[in-house]
């Protein structure tokens, strides 16, 4: 079902006068993981956040260019942002479960989108938690507070929460950078699993992680997209000098 990718054309993002993202064109294919890498402040997070217009919530941000998901331009002012966001899931750097029970964290979205049937909701909760590899750990305490989970579990809960509303694309902003190595590898396994169904865009600082999980990689530097290619090629034989320097650790 979720076979949609995204196409970005000439996307620029301004914080007031400052151009944080400069005319980036990039496309994300379905059932693939695309990693966005680059030094801090290169604009990759801003780029990611503009994909579901999350930057709207911050004052003073202006976005130009086109972002296509199916036949809809995300940046079109007439687009219903609420409906749009339902199709684009998002996971943050720090786990941010709602201050509710584990069950409510998952069921909250679907119920809002019209699924009132208790049985159906139960199914969605179980299914989402299973996909996030969290079911076995939480099935006995679904109605306990989500805040009592460990950091890694919370992050997986957040992923489960975002897939519960059946998005087409999942955006991940450094999803494992606040976690320990064990939790990190669990998240990475999960990403590999999820890519079978979703188009995933992940921002990461960790080059090994990018190499491990992604199919394609895009390198951002100073707000510009320097290079994008298959991950294997990027890490072995980049065509731009800046990419090579960054990957081999000469700066950043």
């Amino acid at each position, binding site marked *: *079902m979720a076979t*949609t990718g995204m196409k970005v054309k000439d996307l620029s993002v301004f914080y007031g006068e400052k151009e944080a993202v400069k005319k980036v064109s990039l496309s994300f294919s379905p059932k693939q993981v695309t990693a966005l890498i680059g030094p801090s402040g290169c604009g990759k997070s801003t780029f990611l956040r503009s994909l579901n217009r999350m930057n709207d919530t911050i004052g003073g941000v202006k976005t130009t260019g086109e972002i296509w*998901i*199916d*036949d*809809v331009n995300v940046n079109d002012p*007439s*687009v*219903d942002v*609420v*409906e*749009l966001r*339902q*199709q684009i899931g998002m996971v943050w750097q720090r786990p941010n479960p709602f201050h509710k029970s584990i069950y409510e964290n998952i069921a909250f979205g679907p119920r809002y*989108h*019209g699924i009132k049937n208790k049985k159906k909701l139960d199914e969605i909760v179980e299914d989402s938690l299973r996909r996030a590899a969290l079911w076995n750990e939480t099935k006995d305490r679904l109605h306990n507070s989500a805040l009592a989970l460990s950091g890694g579990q919370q992050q997986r809960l957040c992923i489960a929460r975002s897939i519960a509303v*059946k998005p*087409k694309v999942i955006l991940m902003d450094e999803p494992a950078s606040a976690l320990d190595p064990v939790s990190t590898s669990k998240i990475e396994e999960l990403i590999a699993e999820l890519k079978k169904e979703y188009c995933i865009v992940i921002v990461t600082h960790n080059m090994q992680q990018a190499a491990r999980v992604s199919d394609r990689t895009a390198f951002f530097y100073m707000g510009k997209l320097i290079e994008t290619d298959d991950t294997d090629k990027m890490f072995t034989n980049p065509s731009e000098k800046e990419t090579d320097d960054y990957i081999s650790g000469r700066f950043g």
Partner: protein
Amino acid sequence: MEQSAVKGQKTNSKSAFMKPHIREEWVGRVYTFVCILVLIATILAIVYFVASKGLSTFITNGVNIGDLLTGLKWDPEGEPAVFGALPFIFGSFSTSLLAALIAAPLGCCAAIFMTQIMPGAGRRFMQPVIELLAGIPSVVYGFVGLSVIVPMLRAIFPGQGIGILAGSLVLAVMILPTITSIATDALAALPGGLKEGSFALGATRWQTIYRIVLPTTLPALLTGVVLGMARAFGEALAVQMVIGNAPHIPRSLFESASTLTSAITLSMGNTISGTAHNNALWSLALILLTMTFIFVFIVRVLERRNHR
């Protein structure tokens, strides 16, 4: 809607109608907007009300605005009536300034105690104690001031006990919670690394507080003090009971004086709306309003500096 093509869920089958989430959003926006309109309307009404009444002293009663602000003699029922509000302005400033001078060190010490010296017990015990001070009604403060502070001052110092010092003492206790809670918040918000860095360099706790903590939080502390002063400036009943209310600039801290608020409270009910005396009282209220604006403005400037 163009979206419908990509929609995977049946929730939006109603899209021909108004979508529920748009309707809901609209309801929320209208509701909150109406609330803010009510708030603004209230503010405008009260400002208009005070300004129109307060300005009529100058317009209909022909009092010179300069005379009002700088005049030393207040004889509203005399022939001819004289309206000089300087003693009240002086009284308001001196009482609130003195109150702030008394309360600021106490409040800051309490805040330091609660955050730096005994964070656990301090917050659990001191905080409720100080918030309680904020909850005691001003009538009770005035009553206690009249029954305890005035006789005490009368016994210790020459004079009648009543006066600016008595007013300041009562006010100091009343504004203590404002100053303390703002100072506590500022000190608690200080990044832990800053202090630890100082300790790591071998500085004592006092050196750390004195050289690192206080300078960094100074703007916030000042904000607290100014807000406290603003509250002192506007307080009426408690001050009126202990200050004596003579419309003169007193020669000492223990001589009967008057503030803007005490002059208003004392005579407002006794005068008839529309008379020169009544209008003059509203002019005092207008001065008060302007002063409060200035106080808040100062706070704003301090806060802005704090953010930088």
